[in-house]
């Protein structure tokens, strides 16, 4: 039997290769859980429109290029273009059924409300020149951390993530090896320790994951499924 929800990295069987111990590892590489992701397009110069969107979503839109806003509950809005934002929320446990949802339901976890927020957003902008498109399935997330994550990053991307250039409030889109990525680092500390979240298009994620895994080998790495 196939699992009901088949994630882009399922093929890599990370669960069976998972080795935990993320904190001490020189490099830690893991699959991010499914998130509710939405491409929002609107003209941010229309302040009324922006206000409606922010109210409905319960999150401000970032005003500066390549920055993000957060609701401090692991919800984010990332600037991706002057008239485009990526909304990135923890997925509702029940959104896609399957074992995870059942487990969540059993444990009584409350819905994070992502679906409701997106619905509210769509509704609020229905009459406007704006576009709200869900892309949760299109995106795949990879986490990269550990004391040597910068060395690994330096092998795949020409973008400088030195702490002077890239801080926790920043996000960026660039190329990592041959894959486009959207990345941010919500918990990056001032000293640069921490981890980054990388999102790719689904079909690129296996390639990128394996490429990162290969790059990390010489430093020693641990893997984890979400």
């Amino acid at each position, binding site marked *: 039997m196939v699992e009901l929800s088949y994630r882009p990295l399922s093929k890599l069987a990370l669960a069976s290769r998972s080795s935990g111990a993320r904190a001490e590892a020189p490099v830690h590489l893991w699959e991010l859980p499914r998130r509710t992701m939405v491409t929002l397009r609107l003209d941010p110069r229309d302040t009324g429109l922006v206000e409606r969107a922010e109210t409905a979503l319960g999150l401000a839109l970032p005003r500066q290029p390549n920055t993000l806003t957060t609701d401090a509950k692991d919800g984010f809005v990332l600037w991706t273009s002057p008239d485009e934002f990526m909304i990135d929320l923890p997925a509702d446990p029940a959104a896609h059924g399957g074992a995870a949802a059942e487990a969540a339901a059993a444990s009584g976890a409350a819905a994070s409300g992502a679906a409701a927020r997106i619905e509210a957003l769509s509704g609020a902008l229905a009459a406007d020149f704006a*576009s709200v498109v869900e892309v949760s399935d299109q995106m795949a997330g990879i986490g990269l951390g550990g004391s040597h994550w910068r060395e690994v990053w330096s092998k795949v991307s020409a973008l400088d993530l030195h702490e002077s*250039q890239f801080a926790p409030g920043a996000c960026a889109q660039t190329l990592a090896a041959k894959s486009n990525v959207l990345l941010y680092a919500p918990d990056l500390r001032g000293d640069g320790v921490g981890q980054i979240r990388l999102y790719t298009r689904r079909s690129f994620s296996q390639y990128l994951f394996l490429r990162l895994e290969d790059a990390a080998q010489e430093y020693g790495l641990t893997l984890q499924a979400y």
Partner: protein
Amino acid sequence: MSQKFRQPEGGRIDRGEPLSFTFDGQTYEGYRGDTVASALLANGVHLVGRSFKYHRPRGIVTAGVEEPNALIDCNVTEAERGTREANNRATVTELRQGLTTKSVNAFPSLSFDLGAVNTLLARFFPAGFYYKTFLVSTRLWHGLIEPVIRRAAGLGVSDESPDISRYDSHYQHADIVIVGAGPTGLQAARTAAQSGARVILVEQDSLCGGSLLRDPVTIDGKDADAWVAGIEAELAAMPNVRVMTRTTLSGIFDHNMLTALERVTDHLDPGQAGLHTPRMRWHRIRARQVVLATGAFERPLVFRNNDLPGIMFAGAVETYLQRYGVRAGERGVFVVNNDMALSAAIKAHHAGIDVTVVDVRDGSGSGERGQGEGPNARSLRDLGVPIHAGHTVIAARGARRVSGVEIAPMNREGTLINGEARVLTCDFLATSGGYNPIVHLHCQSGAKLDFDADTACFVPGPSNPTTPSISAGACRGVFGLNQALNDGAEAASAALQAIGHGADSAAAAPVAKSAVGAAAAPVSQSTGAHDGDLRIRHLWLLPSDKPTSKGGKFWVDFQNDVTAADLELAVRENFRSVEHIKRYTTLGMATDQGKTSNINALGILSDVLGVTIPEIGTTTFRPPYTPTTFGAIAGREPGDFLDVARVTPMHDWHEANGALFEDVGQWKRAWYYPRPGEDMHAAVDRECRAVREGVGLLDASTLGKIIVKGPDAAEFLNRVYTNKWMKLAVGRCRYGLMLGEDGMIMDDGVSSRLGEDEFLMTTTTGGAAGVLTHLEDYLQTEWTDLRVYLTSVTEQWAVASLNGPRARDLLAELCPDADLSAEGFKFMSWQDATVAGIKARIFRISFTGDLAFEINVPADQGMALWSALMNAGSKYGITPYGTEAMHVLRAEKGFIIVGQDTDGSLNPYDMGMGWIVGADKDDFIGKRSLTRKDMADPLRKQFVGILTEDPAVVLPEGAQLVSAADAPAQAFPKAPVPMQGHVSSSYWSSAAGRSIAMGIVKGGLARKGERLIVPLEDGRNVPVVLGDPIFFDTQGERQHG
């Protein structure tokens, strides 16, 4: 005796760790810290190679990267694994356990080389001789002569086993990159680092120190080694600094993109490197500023037979003595034209070597730049070393090793011999003709050179503002140590200033300033160093008793065997531009790229041409600075990571069920699913029949999908497609054709109206990214008034395409709530529904011409949907089919595939698709091009069906058609034959019960019914008849069914 020429003590080698290695099969000993060259010299071995053209015996002449002669072949990993590398310079190859080395370009052996007969015939092989002879037919040239020439040429042998070493690459970023860790670079690094700026110091050598390694003077009251170690420790403690040794800065590209090669494991003993540690790393460093502190090369003097083994650069003799504790010989003659180089003679004298000096300067200071003979010459006199001032070298003597030198006094002008010649015997000869600042990187950055007449060398001119760098120290012609240290500090300050790191800069660079205070770093000073005044006298060619063309040769470029006579010959034949001379003589084109020869050549040419050296100019300095391993540059990408293999949400199912895959752009698409014993033909035929007779399932997830949203969405589609879109009703779908502005077909696909202001557009798999960019381009640049947003959703949806007469029956089982009836769910419309419990959107569109439903579900659910369809479909005999069957099925219906049936030179009319051109629309992309003159040419190539007269024959795709009149009965036509067109698609069709084909034929639309011939490579001439490109269900009933 082993290591007879090793000094009893001294040098930066570890005498506690002897290492043995082999050279040409013979085992030798050296120490950790040695290079192959220093260890060979310690064992008295000078003869290490043969030259490129004449196979002259050649010895070690330098102690660095500029070495032209001592090229060796080494084992890289363990010998048993057979991984060897050719053409390594012995002077920079570090000794390690288990190293086996060989000379290159000698057969059968170094001391007896058959190729050396070329030496005897040298007179017949002047520069460019091959252009003047072998003027034979191309057949003879390629068949007979070229192989001989090829075998003779080339240095080392390429190991033909796959290179199993691991290579890796990195991107780095720095505020300031400092190249060279000599005194200048170290001082610069220290100054730059103190500011807190991000600094990278790059040094090609295994040790920092540069010239201090051969001239250990006192700095800041410490000996040089201690000073270097102190700075290294200081830098190591700073988090903003990275020191990279064994790393060669190989190139500077636009906007200061620097490349550097780091040698990580070659010097390690077997087993020492980590399993995944790469052999080399390739660094691309983006620098805001660059400080070049790359030092200077010594240059040789040009005299007859100056290429004999045992003739070395004075600085090299000094380096071998000081750094490696190795004497170049027991009796040395030092032939110099400047004072600086004589420090080598002093050290040699102290080391117990019997030293004689031949100084082309006459001691009077006349003809020399600078004052008097200089401190080193004075010291030598005080030491009682014999000095032959004002003497020239007539010739060096010896066969496989220098044994003496013939010298004579010369006139004051340095043009003629004017006294008795005498012979000095020696076992090595050290020369110095001055120094050439290493300006390679400066020039690579796009900046120019100035000529400094005092030191007779090129020095950096103004930096290129687009790719800025600052040169300091010896590489800028500053040869005194104290001056160089100051220069390093100043260069670093200037670089800091330039990036806004200066004390007075408000625009602070985005750097964490906390690390270090702003206190300026101290500038070190030395006591007892040379004052840096070369006091040089240039004689580009030492006067001799015979002209350069007769008798022995005056070597300029050792590796490529270019002599002074060759340069003169080139000029005689009117190769006057330095670029022509380079190419005619091959000067500077060898693996050392003329590092030691180019300036001497310019000096000689300036005499011959009667113009100054700067008027002649240099040839172009190009990357890399030293030869750079391909594998390192390629990094991890060859192999699995060469390109992304994009896979669909159902890919794992296809793989588990035996599918073979076809590459479509970056995608892997299921091609066909052979069952045991089936070949491609059988499998595809089975898959096709299943679709026509029952039901088949195709993974169509790869098609591009774009949400087009906004009040002007319909107007936008109207402009980007050839046909009309304004009136398409919500819930309906339409096929669209997209052209480039040249009027040629670019892409196609079905778009559906999701709402009044929202469409879902589909594109071809390979065209998806390009189409999105194309559309964004028009929205952002041309039609900025259109209110439309585009969002790619290609991968949001998994698409399972259910095709065949039983498709509805099957789907109905899984989606009980939806009305799937022909009336309720019309062809070319869509509806939302729940399929197997999954929220889906179903499109009634068909690329097979059969009843079809394209079911879209969120990608995470694709696998579940696929499995559900397969399970429920088993009773209908559901058959997964791949792209090959899909191609056959669409061909049966005459549907085109953009990129297969079109090739960028075909418009909609050519494809018989005039019906889809809304010619009465105001405008659409490509419209204007459709009315150009040649578009109306009735003889344009047009799309037609092609049927073989024999229905069993399947034409090969790509086959060409000719007129029946041009094809003889049963033979390949006599070329050239006018071609009428070609076969673009061709298959066996079970549904049609015969082969079918389509293609592009001149004036084809008007030639239906005509008989043409397809001549095949195997000699068959296949008769065909042109017709309509449709072979099945010509009325199109099935898809509506």
